[in-house]
């Protein structure tokens, strides 16, 4: 087993935000037990955007679930700003953006985005709650606040779901392929929306994705995972200047990095087939 890889990153020298240490997790009955995560260690610094990318079955969604407290690891430890996942959840420190928007169809967009403020109100003390209307406006949904989810396009629903995760000022945002259900044009638009918003509200983000360009344009670091058993194969620094915008796609630096990540991904997938 390779030693845990810890890439250096000097851009965020502050204390560690999320510390994932030696997580193991397996599923299934004893005779057909599948190791989904095999000694995964990772640090997400405060304000850092980290993407998880890798072939299906590499455990990237499982890792996200473990950090979210939705799935229990067999071994290892996750700490969020020094707290256990359970404590962090009690303090509403975790913002989740699931794969589908999962908005409540009987609530307006405004009421959906206000939900995390009204839930578990004890944890609201001493935090910088945002004004739901304001955050919706900055996501370009200012005119839609009184609409119901079914009245919005899929892209707008997903943006509302992201606003819902930012509104209560969590310490870490976990996003599980939030744009995977959208068509390509819509996806790129939402990506840029998230990039803009995040660059002016830098929060720790763990972002699961299948898309190499998406990972590059958004992230500070890309964590490349390999499957069978799920593990970290490589951590790639994205040393592209911020603030970024669409123009970055056309630069040589972006293309070089894209080529490098794709190549690394191919190697990981070929190794799995041998």
């Amino acid at each position, binding site marked *: 087993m390779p030693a845990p890889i810890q890439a250096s990153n000097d851009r965020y020298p502050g204390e560690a935000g999320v510390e994932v240490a030696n997580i193991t997790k397996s599923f299934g009955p004893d005779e057909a037990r599948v190791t989904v995560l095999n000694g995964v260690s990772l640090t997400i610094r405060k304000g850092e955007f980290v993407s998880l990318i890798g072939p299906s079955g590499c455990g990237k969604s499982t890792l996200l679930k473990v950090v979210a407290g939705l799935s229990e690891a067999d071994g290892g430890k996750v700490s969020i700003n020094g707290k256990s996942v359970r404590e962090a959840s009690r303090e509403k420190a975790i913002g989740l953006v699931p794969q589908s928007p999962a908005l409540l169809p009987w609530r307006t967009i405004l009421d959906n985005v206000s*939900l995390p403020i009204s839930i578990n109100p004890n944890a609201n003390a001493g935090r910088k709650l945002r004004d739901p209307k304001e955050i919706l406006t900055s996501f370009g949904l200012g005119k839609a606040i009184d609409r119901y989810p079914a009245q919005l396009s899929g892209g707008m629903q997903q943006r509302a779901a992201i606003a819902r995760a930012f509104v209560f000022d969590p310490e870490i945002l976990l996003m599980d392929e939030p744009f995977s259900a959208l068509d390509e044009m819509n996806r790129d638009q939402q990506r840029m929306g998230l990039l803009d918003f995040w660059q002016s509200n830098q929060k720790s983000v763990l972002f699961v994705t299948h898309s190499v360009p998406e990972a590059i344009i958004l992230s500070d670091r890309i964590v490349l995972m390999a499957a069978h058993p799920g593990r970290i194969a490589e951590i790639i620094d994205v040393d592209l200047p911020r603030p970024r915008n669409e123009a970055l796609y056309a630069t040589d630096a972006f293309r070089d990095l894209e080529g490098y990540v794709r190549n690394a991904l191919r190697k990981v997938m070929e190794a799995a087939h041998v």
Partner: protein
Amino acid sequence: MSSSIAAEAAPKAKTSSPMARMAGDWLPPAVTFVIVAVLWQVVALNNPYVLPTLESVGNSMASDPHMYWANMLVTCQEIVIGAGAGILFGFLLAVAMSELPIIEKAMMPLIVVIMVTPVVAIAPALVVAFGFGMLPKYIVTGLVVFFPMLVNSLAGLRDVDQKALDVFKTLHASRWETFRDLRLPGCMPFVFAGLRIAMPLAVVGAAVAEFVAAGQQAGLGSLVTISAAQADLPVTWASIALLCLLGVVLVSLLALLRKRVLWWSDADVIGR
């Protein structure tokens, strides 16, 4: 993109005028009713001991409206109290079962046993136990609607959007918050599906309760049995018509209520 914000009213077929559209909705069923009425009259006029003529049924209602009204109120009372209690209890038990699986484990077998026992068979025993008052009738009516309410509500409470549930979990939502903000509103489409089944059954239940747990000899069901025994066909059929009307009114009220409560679950109502 911004154009998709504006909810366009679902465009209906605009080829015909409103009048013509209304005629299109009403005319076919009206024709069916007219044909049935004509056939009825033909049979009634030739076989007076099989069916009463429609005008004799109408005359019977017009000649003694207070008698029909009083009996209808009794049946309504059985439906409101009996079915109301059955619906409420079915729903509350579903909530208890979905929150505490041990309750479902403990009670489901007993409930299935009760449900496969014919209500008609239990009724006389209930009369023996509870006397000739209204209570056995409430129980019979309640039993009939209880099961569809329980099963549908339980299915609804279980049919939670898992991704939304994940969001609630990461927020450390309490059980009560999850129930109030997610499970309860989310189960309403199923609850209304249960009510849609329960409403006609409530009328059946009340009528059957009067048949088998006779006692006070009041209500439209009792009126049917008594008049049929006396071969007073106009009264029999007038009572049947009123039972039928009761069912139609209940189902229509339910549809109205559903529109108010569940507008969000009908995508075509709010438009896309």
